[in-house]
């Protein structure tokens, strides 16, 4: 049998699963002459609904903000445009924040895509490898004159989301069922997502903190990262940020650079 023929049963069946304009495959027959299209629609519906449910499970705060009906309509567009490429559904939706940013009906909520980015990062952190974060005391043992040469390896759960809006506050207010006060959405916020043990934590980063950590995560030395942070934010507080990053468990290990 040729490879083309062997592929036939899935390719014909798959074609219309996410495309409602595609007629049901011709190789099927309904039982007792019943309407075949209705039966094929059961699969179409199962596939679409289960993938929308998968996005709803990854992005609960986004759904809470938009309401269920709005969310499911938006998710349906995305599911049809970008169905999952992996059977691990907890990895689905990497490109959903970008989709939200482009989504015509979400333009009145310019911060929504960043909230989705935090939720996606939250789930990545949740499933990340179990590695003990770098202990706060580790830094105390480094000779003072060599601290600036340190390079750090990020903990597998660590993520940073920078937003021009108050995405971290909006995320926090919508992840649980608590009543919320009105928020000013227009203040830029940077979020840090970590999972030092088994609980995912989302924190606000202080001014310059995001640039500092991003530079460290990209492999720059502590000295270089501090300079980047100061260039980003003149009031950058190195001591406070160092203490904060160790407390949050952003890094897994560190090593000294060459003697300067």
């Amino acid at each position, binding site marked *: 049998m040729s490879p083309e023929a062997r592929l036939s049963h*899935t390719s014909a069946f798959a074609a219309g699963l996410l495309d409602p304009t595609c007629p049901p495959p011709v190789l099927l027959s309904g039982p007792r002459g019943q309407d075949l299209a209705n039966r094929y629609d059961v699969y179409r519906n199962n596939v679409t609904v289960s993938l929308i449910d998968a996005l709803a499970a990854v992005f609960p705060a986004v759904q809470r903000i938009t309401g269920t009906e709005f969310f499911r309509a938006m998710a349906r567009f995305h599911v049809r445009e970008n169905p999952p490429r992996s*059977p691990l559904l907890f990895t689905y939706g990497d490109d959903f924040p970008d989709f939200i940013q482009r989504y015509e009906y979400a333009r009145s909520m310019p911060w929504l895509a960043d909230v989705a980015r935090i939720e996606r990062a939250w789930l990545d952190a949740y499933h990340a490898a179990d590695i003990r974060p770098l202990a706060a005391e580790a830094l105390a043992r480094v000779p003072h004159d060599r601290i600036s040469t340190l390079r750090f390896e990020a903990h597998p759960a660590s993520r940073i989301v920078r937003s021009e809006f108050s995405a971290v506050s909006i995320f926090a207010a919508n992840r649980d069922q608590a009543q919320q006060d009105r928020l000013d959405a227009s203040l830029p916020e940077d979020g840090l997502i970590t999972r030092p043990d088994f609980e995912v934590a989302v924190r606000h980063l202080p001014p310059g903190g995001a640039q500092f950590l991003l530079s460290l995560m990209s492999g720059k030395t502590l000295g270089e990262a501090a300079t980047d942070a100061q260039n980003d934010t003149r009031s950058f507080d190195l001591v406070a940020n160092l203490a904060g990053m160790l407390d949050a468990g952003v890094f897994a290990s560190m090593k000294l650079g060459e003697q300067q």
Partner: protein
Amino acid sequence: MQQASIPTTSRAAPLRFSFPNGGRSGTSFKPEHLPSILAEGSRTGFFEVHAENYMGAGGPPHRALETLRRDHTLSIHGVCMSIGGAQPLDRAHLGRFRDLIARYQPALVSEHLAWSTHGDTFFNDLLPLPYTEGTLRSVCDHIDQVQEAIRRPILLENPSTYLVFAESTMTETDFIREVTRRTGCGLLLDINNVFVSATNLGFSASQYLSEFPLLKVGEIHLAGHASQNDGAGAPLMIDSHDRPVSNEVWALFETVISEFGPVPTLIEWDSQVPVWSVLKAEAAAAQAILDRYHRMFSYGERHVA
């Protein structure tokens, strides 16, 4: 603490003896039930998880499963291998499946006679296949690969279906019997799926069960289904796993157990999951039937028809 079971290291071969775990009932494991399960302390039943939910690198899912596994028998149920697909198995996914089995040493391992991936698109549904010589060869080839990878036989689950393929040249039960003969795999008989398919396709569930190779069954699934109308006036059952097992399915289950003896039986509940006590009550109902026939079979009333 219970001893870890000894891993099977031989190549997959037909099982000559019954699968472990005898005639116990179990339930799907839902992490929200873990505190109630641990508080209870009784360790008679078993728990089944969907393999893919535990394929992340770490975090709370693995911690919960390790906690559960310490004191309870585990069944790992693969949902996404796409054994019924036309394309080669996803090697990366097969590797993840192998690693999960090696890590948790479950008493039971199962997968589906269905497909879920085409090209690089994952549809997240158990999709049907025609039953032909061609699909038989590819299904057997895929099961061989899975069994080689995990070094033990799997149980293959019969699907729930909503339509049939014009090109099928054999019945589902003939197809499944031939798969077990060629690959040495066991079977997971989902009685709710039989009932759902029988209603949707207009055949007799009892007839299907009488043709099913019941001696190869190492596990039974029971679940609830939604009942609708297909728009053309015919009843349409949806395999929804969101409610208690129906009376019709309980009756079919009792018939199977009365004729073939107790088999590990799982209550599946995956959507609108109730509190633990409700799920536990469903498992207790299955256990009552298993116990009734366990006594009967252990007193030697089993006879060869």
